[in-house]
């Protein structure tokens, strides 16, 4: 499982894929590197490089050293550094013993978002190693090079970061479901229950397709946090082997219990004729997004159902097909303002030259709608009502409402 250190050093592809000479000490002359929208670094409390999203960690060792010094310097005065704000660039530090995670972003995200992304990365690492083991390693050897244990995990982290930049599920803390009619979903569920009922110690069965949840069946006493689901989604997406075969992968879900030994997750593809057809159909058919006909002024929206932590979005159409990141950022900003820890808001309507966004937080749901920039506010409000009605009608189809238990 663990490749020897030599192998890592001989094969630069394992550690990273950025050309070798571009990231050296002269970062100041290296525009490519400085222009990256979002850097992520992971280092040990002792300053040992573990991961850099761009550039080779070994060549950036000095930079990791600086970060460690800053963190420990502030710690020495009994404080803890959290973020640095410099014009267009935001630096966020997450000190999670025994690791230090740093994000440097020019993408206009907020501190909260970056911190949560860093937590995801941290959880990704602990999902492979478990926190207990991680702590033990550093207790024994402060200077341990964790990269030895994380071969292959880099790719997961890379994928996780890319994924979180284009997916609303992360900041919403929810998962997206594959739209299916209630009868098809019930058939699938009962098929799974029938097949899995006899397997001992099976805690969850998750069926997903193209990152959309089809079915989630759980043991009665357990439930699964969306953050953990995201890690599973990420694992499935990033691992080629899982896509093509049935396999076992040990995985520790941090939100579930970060200290227990890995839960084994069985990833399995469902091969039952009639249901598969329905799934394929739903995957291929462009879903009945509500942006057609009389709702031309709605460009895109997100609807999160709070009780199930699931959300629905229509497929992304113009003008955002090429600039999905921009759209996600618009949502992220609105979400951030709505959920500001000290001054939360119920409703936001914001308009600029590119678009208008309405964000609304209620007890049962959160709704975010992106409109044409010149939309009339009264019209926007009337759209909200109509959209909610439509969603109510489609609820059974677009959400996985009653999760059966084993």
């Amino acid at each position, binding site marked *: 499982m663990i490749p020897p250190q030599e192998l890592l050093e001989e094969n630069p592809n394992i550690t990273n894929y950025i050309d070798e000479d571009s990231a050296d000490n002269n970062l*100041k002359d290296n525009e490519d590197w400085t222009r990256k929208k979002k850097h992520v670094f992971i280092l040990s409390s002792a300053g040992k490089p573990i991961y850099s999203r761009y550039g080779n960690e070994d060549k950036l060792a000095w930079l990791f050293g*600086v970060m460690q010094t800053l963190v420990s310097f502030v710690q020495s005065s009994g*404080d803890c550094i*959290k973020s640095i704000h410099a014009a267009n660039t935001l630096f966020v530090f997450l000190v999670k013993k025994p690791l230090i995670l740093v994000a440097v972003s020019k993408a206009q995200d907020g501190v909260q978002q970056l911190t949560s992304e860093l937590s995801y990365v941290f959880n990704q690492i602990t999902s492979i190693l478990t926190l207990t083991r991680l702590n033990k390693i550093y207790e024994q050897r402060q200077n341990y090079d964790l990269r030895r244990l994380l071969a292959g995990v880099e790719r997961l982290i890379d994928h996780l970061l890319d994924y979180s930049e284009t997916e609303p599920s992360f900041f919403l803390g929810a998962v997206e479901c594959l739209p299916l009619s209630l009868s098809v979903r019930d058939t699938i569920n009962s098929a799974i229950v029938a097949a899995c009922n006899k397997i001992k110690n099976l805690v969850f069965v998750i069926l997903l397709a193209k990152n959309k949840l089809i079915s989630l069946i759980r043991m009665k006493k357990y439930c699964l946090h969306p953050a953990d689901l995201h890690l599973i989604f990420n694992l499935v997406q990033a691992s080629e082997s899982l896509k093509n075969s049935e396999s076992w992968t040990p995985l520790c879900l941090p939100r579930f219990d970060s200290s227990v030994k890995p839960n084994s997750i069985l990833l399995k593809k469902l091969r039952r004729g009639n249901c598969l057809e329905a799934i394929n159909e739903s995957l291929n058919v462009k879903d009945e997004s509500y942006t057609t006909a009389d709702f031309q002024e709605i460009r895109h929206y997100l609807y999160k159902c709070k009780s199930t932590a699931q959300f629905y979005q229509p497929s992304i159409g113009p003008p955002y097909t090429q600039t999905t990141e921009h759209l996600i950022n618009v949502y992220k900003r609105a979400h951030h303002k709505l959920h500001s820890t000290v*001054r939360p*808001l119920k*409703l936001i309507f914001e308009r*600029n030259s590119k678009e208008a966004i309405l964000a609304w937080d209620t007890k049962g749901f959160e709704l975010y709608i992106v409109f044409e920039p010149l939309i009339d506010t009264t019209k926007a409000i009337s759209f909200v009502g109509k959209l909610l009605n439509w969603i109510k009608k489609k609820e059974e189809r677009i959400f996985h409402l009653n999760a059966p238990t084993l």
Partner: protein
Amino acid sequence: MNNKTDVSLKNFFIFNSAFGAKEGEEAKKVLYYHPITDTTDVQIKNVGLVEGIIQFCENFKPSGDINSVHMEKTRQLYFQAEKDYWLVMTLNLPTVLNTKEGSQTTDYSEEDVQDNVYEAVLKQAYYMYRLFYGTFKSIKDVANLMMTLEIFYKTYLPLDKQTFLKVQCFINLLESTYPIIQHTAYLSGIEPDDMKFVYQYLIGTLLPANMETELQGGSMPRNSASPFTVLRNGRFITGPSNLKLAKTIGKVPKMFLFSGGKQEEYHLVVYRALSASVFNRLNVRLFKELDAFISPKLVTIASDIAEYCSKQVITPSNLPESAPRFIYFNKLNLAYKSTVHLDNKQTGNIACTKESLRLMADIKSTNSTLGSYGETIVKTMNDYWRK
């Protein structure tokens, strides 16, 4: 019941990163440091950390200087006023003491300290200094510079600490104000940026509440046949108090104003007739002429203004509780209107909750992302609307 602390000033210092580059000479970087109770070692350490952070950030080529560093318990604000000259202010975050299941924890309310508000306070600290002494660079002798800094900030800081706690700083943030447009109307050649600080000085220090009493009280009987008898001829607030006897210009504060990037030295003369103030750059010979010249004209203009002001002042306090309150700020002419404040001094005495003010500061900070055109409507948890 004292389980809350408010935001407070931890330290404030000015240093030049180009000074004292040699090992062991780091203390030379520090030009001003508050409080003096911090030892030289602590001072060097703090400056060192700031320099470290600045250098670290430069690796990533941000589009501008660092504005702030957030820490769990403190907040640090940075302002590079002139090349290599940095002003740094560290604030202790407000805390709330929570007792949960017997054990006490201290929570730091990070979000209650808004960067843009305190950035404005920090910048004001510099521009106020520059108003009276000119740029840091213009004082060639370092010892001399340190002395002027000492003199200025020793008196400036305690005053500012008071304002920290008040919503005063919120006004700074919204930048300058409505009456200023009346002052500038008489003036030409003063840059708007300086104008703000001149105004701040006038309002904060020179013209205490008397403007208000004039406007609101009976000193201005509008239908009386002989209004303004007392104030008819106006008076100089700075400068000679009795014109007929004046031989020297008296104690006139010097001001350094900047136009077109050049520094010019002026004397500040505040001439006060009714509620309008005029400053001019003059010498003593002009005082008398000026008085004769300005006085009659100003009285008529000023009474108009006063009339207008009084309407303005009365409006907000008469508003019903639930009426919308607004702050309007026109960036082009620095005009500013507010129904948030109940009095004309526009410090404290606010009509809406602190929360709402903070919210407005939040909204202001998003303006940059909105671009030149935009609007924001939000609804708060207790159903207030803001636009």
